């Protein structure tokens, strides 16, 4: 049976509860075990830290989808000043699974885009679980072209299970909408920084990840398709998703090793939601530093570097 829920924290809390009971009990019996307890407490902390440094790929997937995980809007509101959200694709509608607007970071105006998941069922129904329709990708295209016009760098935050698979999405051209964003971003004449904050799911995530720098939070994942889908398609067994998660090489470290991600932004022990401010602050520092570096590169050179980077992805043999 595949574990669908990241339950380490609950188990750890149980252990802590038992530990406190034990302390209470020994006090009531007037056993002096202070030193022993101190040792045990430290050992417990160490084990927890160690656990989070050695999560399996599947556990990272579960963490990246955790119901308490900060959403893209949380990060935007913390990291940027003067955030003004813009709406609509000027064609069909406003996709609430994809948010975008203008803001500033350390005084520099930027265009910000990201997938928006919700917290809880109601919010998730409102944001369609962070799964955009074509109008979401057309909103992206509109706002990145606007960013180029006003010479504003672009920052994107990626957190989606994927583009929405539905009748309306197909009728309105999901494939073409994603393809055009990929093409437009590849030569957009302003610096682009992308961050995977949670779930990087398939082409719907990739559309926001074409960039000069790709950062990933340490518990985020980026995958060609969900581990569940891959297991059911390749192995005809969705129950082997956990095994598939490891085979796909989808953790932040894997993606960096493959030469696709540039930097990993460490999350606190327990994940980003355990200390949001710290995580967001770290991310802000990284975004700021990367932006400074990219702004220092001559524009023509920047575009050349972006192209070279994209062009060389892939491995094969040639006889």
């Amino acid at each position, binding site marked *: 049976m595949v574990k669908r829920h990241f339950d380490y924290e609950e188990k750890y809390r149980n252990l802590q509860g038992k530990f406190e009971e034990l302390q209470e009990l020994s006090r009531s019996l007037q056993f002096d075990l202070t030193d022993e307890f101190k040792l045990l407490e430290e050992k417990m902390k160490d084990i927890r830290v160690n656990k989070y440094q050695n999560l399996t790929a599947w556990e990272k997937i579960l963490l990246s989808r955790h119901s308490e995980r900060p959403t893209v809007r949380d990060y935007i509101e913390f990291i940027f000043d003067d955030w003004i959200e813009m709406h609509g694709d000027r064609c069909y509608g406003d996709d609430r699974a994809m948010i975008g607007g203008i803001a500033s970071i350390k005084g520099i105006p930027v265009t910000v885009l990201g997938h928006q998941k919700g917290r809880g069922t109601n919010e998730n129904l409102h944001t369609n679980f962070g799964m955009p329709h074509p109008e979401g990708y057309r909103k992206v295209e509109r706002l990145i072209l606007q960013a180029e016009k006003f010479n504003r760098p672009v920052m994107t935050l990626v957190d989606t299970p994927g583009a929405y698979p539905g009748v309306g999405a197909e*009728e309105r*051209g999901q494939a073409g909408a994603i393809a055009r964003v990929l093409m437009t971003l590849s030569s957009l004449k302003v610096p682009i920084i992308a961050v995977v904050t949670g779930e990087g799911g398939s082409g719907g995530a990739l559309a926001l990840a074409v960039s000069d720098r790709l950062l990933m939070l340490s518990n985020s994942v980026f995958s*060609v398709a969900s581990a569940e889908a891959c297991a059911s398609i390749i192995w005809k067994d969705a129950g082997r998703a956990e095994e598939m998660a490891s085979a796909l090489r989808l953790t932040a470290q894997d993606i960096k090793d*493959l030469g696709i991600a540039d930097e990993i932004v460490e999350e606190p022990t327990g994940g980003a939601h355990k200390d949001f401010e710290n995580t967001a602050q770290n991310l802000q520092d990284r975004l700021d530093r990367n932006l400074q570096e990219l702004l220092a590169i001559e524009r023509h050179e920047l575009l050349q570097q972006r192209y070279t980077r994209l062009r060389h992805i892939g491995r*094969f043999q040639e*006889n």
Partner: protein
Amino acid sequence: MLKNAFGKQKLIPVPGSREYMESEGRISAQEKCPSCSRRISELELKENHKVCPECQYHYSMTAWERIELIADDQSFQEFNSGLRSINLLDFPGYNEKLTGAISKTGLNEALITGQCTIGGYPAILGTMDSRFMMASMGSVVGEKVCRAIEKAADLKIPLILCAASGGARMQEGMLSLMQMAKTSAALDKFHEQGLLYISLLTNPTTGGVAASFASLADIILAEPGALIGFAGPRVIKQTISEILPEDFQKAEFMLKHGMVDKIVSRPVLKDMVERLLRLHLGGNNG
């Protein structure tokens, strides 16, 4: 009745008729059309460009058959045929899958690219073969697409890519997903030069190929009845648990919703491509 008069005696078939060809052993296996159940011989299918003469059902075509259909006789010269996939993630079973696909198709990968003439006009032509792991796009397909684009740009001649793909090659993980970005970036450079790119969507064109190079053409043609879309119909059915419209994601549906320029059946495909090349003055804008 005549039949009664002759009893059980066998009729002598008229030369050229189906019965005649059968009796002469000129038709081997008889196949039933999956769409209308009419019996069709291999020969008849081949002569009719693998289209059912009764219902116009388009059978799937191999990459080489597609080249034969579009390129002028003897004009096609393949390039980059030596590119082969490697199991870069040590993905379980991928080596066996590749070996199986290679021996089944005689191809090194799911895409053939080369230079040819079409109606006398020089062009770069790429065709995909869905027998090769559903013509999924991994590093090799992505690289060959990019090289074909670059070759067309170098020679300032039109590019014609015939897509048929189930999407990204999952066995190559994120390296396969990134081929979407890679091919899209190469096409951006191509378009900047004012060159012509015609995309033909054949059955099936879905997932990562639909959401990248196959959708980024100046002119998008589709074969009748081809499945075209981003998400596969099974995934959509699971997600929305509704009955889907009958023509859902078929080429005709995509035409109705404005996603393709034209549906072109096989017997007139080469002619259509030639006319388009002629109207673009050979597609050489350099």
